[in-house]
């Protein structure tokens, strides 16, 4: 590492702030609160500024370069989002203020609720969940509350296709369900026959990611949803890949009952270390009463003299509060800004360009890499990072070598149904020039894998630190550089 820690930079007696001279009698701290040693780092303000500036320069971000991390939708976050989120009226409100004094903020939340409902085709929505997996948990708890409200207590099974996000089975377990795997067919769709076999009166629901993690739109999505509904189950949509569908199709119209929306992916709010995330959950009309409490609504309709009064309404069969206050409000402002800036035509163009960019890359790279599911993709696609005639080279080596070419690696080893997976999602915000530079690098790496495999094994060479010891990182956790016993 080229930058020491703040503890290593510390110099005894150095301070960042000098307090004003004490002009009142000092009051001693009680002995109980005194300790012999408190090894806090001692630095000047300039030391601190340089330290964190250096660290930020070592970091890789979407503002610095191409970031094709599959399933993460690392699109550019427009700066106008930051301008609106920093407006004093939004920045300085407190969630405990009387609603009459925060009508502007409530309008923002209400408008975002309404626009997300319009975009996804659902009837009701909560903005509370803190991120995608949190949204999944909320959706699963709504699923549970729905079956319970009908006295249907035997529904304990949740089906999860093997092309789903890994959080789906984890979430259904956490909500008290038993997750059961559904295999994919040769075209990457849910295997319809296997699905039929698994649907019985213990079925609580299906968690479907569509497009799935192969970047493929399920060709039988309507049939899949119908089979689950016929068996009395609900269909949960993992909205992580919504970017491919904006303005083209609406999951609510397809028959999904519940879906979470990743504002931090689809609607251009910061993520990848720069969050926080936000995972609103939208539901069909028959589930609106179960939403987390409260949601924003209109308490008094507008009159000739007065605008409407916005406030909080309470779903009658709510699963309860699932987040302190009202979710990540700053992110809500950013997402609404993005949606308003794009408008309906702009949102559709987002999806179209995201899909076009992914297919452009896929067509060029399948000449050099194995493409196991070879059909038109949506916003992303999955290659194999391995060749029969390049012994010892793995997807991880390809990913690390890409860092030497100045780009963030794709997601690797996911989804699990592809051997040595490299999952690539360019997003709509990249130019053809950037995509071509990426294709050149990937083609060079494929050539190197055959001719100079050691270049890949030892990569990255051009980064601040070389290949990390992933085994040590997983097994030998040291989360604090100061340990009391030392």
């Amino acid at each position: 590492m080229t930058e020491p820690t703040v503890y290593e930079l510390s110099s005894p007696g150095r301070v960042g702030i000098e307090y004003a001279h004490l002009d009142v009698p000092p009051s001693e701290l009680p002995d109980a609160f005194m300790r012999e040693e408190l090894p806090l780092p001692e630095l000047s303000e300039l030391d601190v500024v340089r330290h964190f500036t250096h660290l930020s320069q070592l970091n890789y971000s979407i503002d610095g370069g191409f970031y094709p991390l599959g399933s993460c939708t690392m699109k550019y976050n427009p700066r106008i989002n930051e301008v609106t989120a920093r407006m004093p009226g939004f920045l300085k409100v407190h969630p405990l203020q009387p609603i009459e004094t925060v009508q502007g903020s409530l309008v923002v939340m209400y408008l975002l609720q309404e626009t997300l409902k319009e975009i996804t085709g659902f009837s009701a929505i909560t903005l509370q969940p803190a991120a995608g997996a949190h949204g999944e948990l909320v959706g699963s708890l709504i699923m549970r509350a729905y079956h319970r409200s009908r006295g249907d207590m035997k529904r304990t099974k949740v089906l999860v296709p093997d092309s789903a996000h890994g959080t789906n089975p984890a979430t259904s377990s956490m909500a008290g369900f038993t997750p059961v795997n559904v295999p994919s067919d040769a075209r990457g769709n849910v295997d319809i026959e296997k699905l039929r076999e698994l649907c019985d009166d213990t079925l609580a629901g299906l968690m479907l990611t569509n497009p799935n993690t192969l970047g493929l739109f399920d060709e039988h999505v309507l049939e899949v949803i119908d089979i689950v509904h016929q068996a009395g189950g609900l269909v949960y949509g993992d909205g992580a890949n919504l970017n491919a569908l904006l303005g083209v199709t609406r999951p609510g119209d397809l028959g999904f009952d519940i879906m979470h929306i990743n504002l931090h992916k689809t609607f251009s709010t910061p993520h990848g270390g720069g969050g926080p995330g936000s995972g609103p959950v939208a539901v069909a009309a028959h589930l609106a009463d179960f939403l987390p409490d409260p949601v924003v609504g209109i308490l008094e309709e507008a009159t000739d003299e007065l605008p409407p009064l916005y406030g909080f309404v309470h779903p009658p069969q709510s699963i309860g509060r699932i987040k302190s206050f009202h979710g990540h409000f700053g992110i809500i402002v950013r997402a609404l800004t993005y949606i308003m800036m794009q408008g309906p035509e702009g949102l559709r163009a987002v999806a179209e360009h995201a899909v076009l960019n992914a297919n452009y890359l896929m067509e060029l790279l399948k000449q050099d890499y194995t493409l196991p599911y070879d059909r038109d993709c949506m916003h992303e696609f999955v290659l194999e990072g391995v060749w029969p005639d390049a012994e010892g080279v793995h997807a991880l080596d390809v990913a690390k070598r890409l860092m030497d070419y100045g780009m963030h690696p794709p997601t690797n080893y996911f989804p699990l149904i592809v051997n040595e997976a490299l999952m690539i999602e360019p997003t709509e915000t990249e130019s053809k020039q950037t995509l071509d530079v990426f294709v050149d690098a990937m083609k060079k790496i494929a050539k190197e894998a055959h001719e100079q495999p050691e270049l890949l094994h030892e990569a990255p060479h051009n980064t601040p630190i070389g290949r990390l010891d992933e085994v040590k990182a997983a097994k030998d956790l040291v989360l604090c550089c100061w340990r009391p016993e030392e």
Partner: protein
Amino acid sequence: MNTPSNLKYAKTDEWVKLDGSIATIGVSDYAQDQLSDIVFIEFNRETDDKVSKGDALATIESVKAAGDVNSPVSGKVLEVNEGLSDIPETINDDPYEKGWLYKIEVSDPSEMDELMDAAAYEKYCEGRH
């Protein structure tokens, strides 16, 4: 890929060695190679626990992925190789000897007939790519 011929194999990549009524269970060389460096193992069953074929006996986590070890037979747990918790990489180094996971007294030896022999398992693994 090392596939000893004296063992039987399950589609979910466990191996079984039957001595009398005692089955020793582990994960195959193919499975450990696919997982790459194993960093954790969590055992779900203790000595004397009853297990049914297909039960999740353990969870293995590598730097790439996490996966369940499913019981290829039914019976009662006689012994758990708990020492692996401290040195799970033993499964990478020696999957068929020191890397064994459970010894189980089998209740239905005919379940062994449903497993693959080495030749069939090798063919099965080759067909997965």
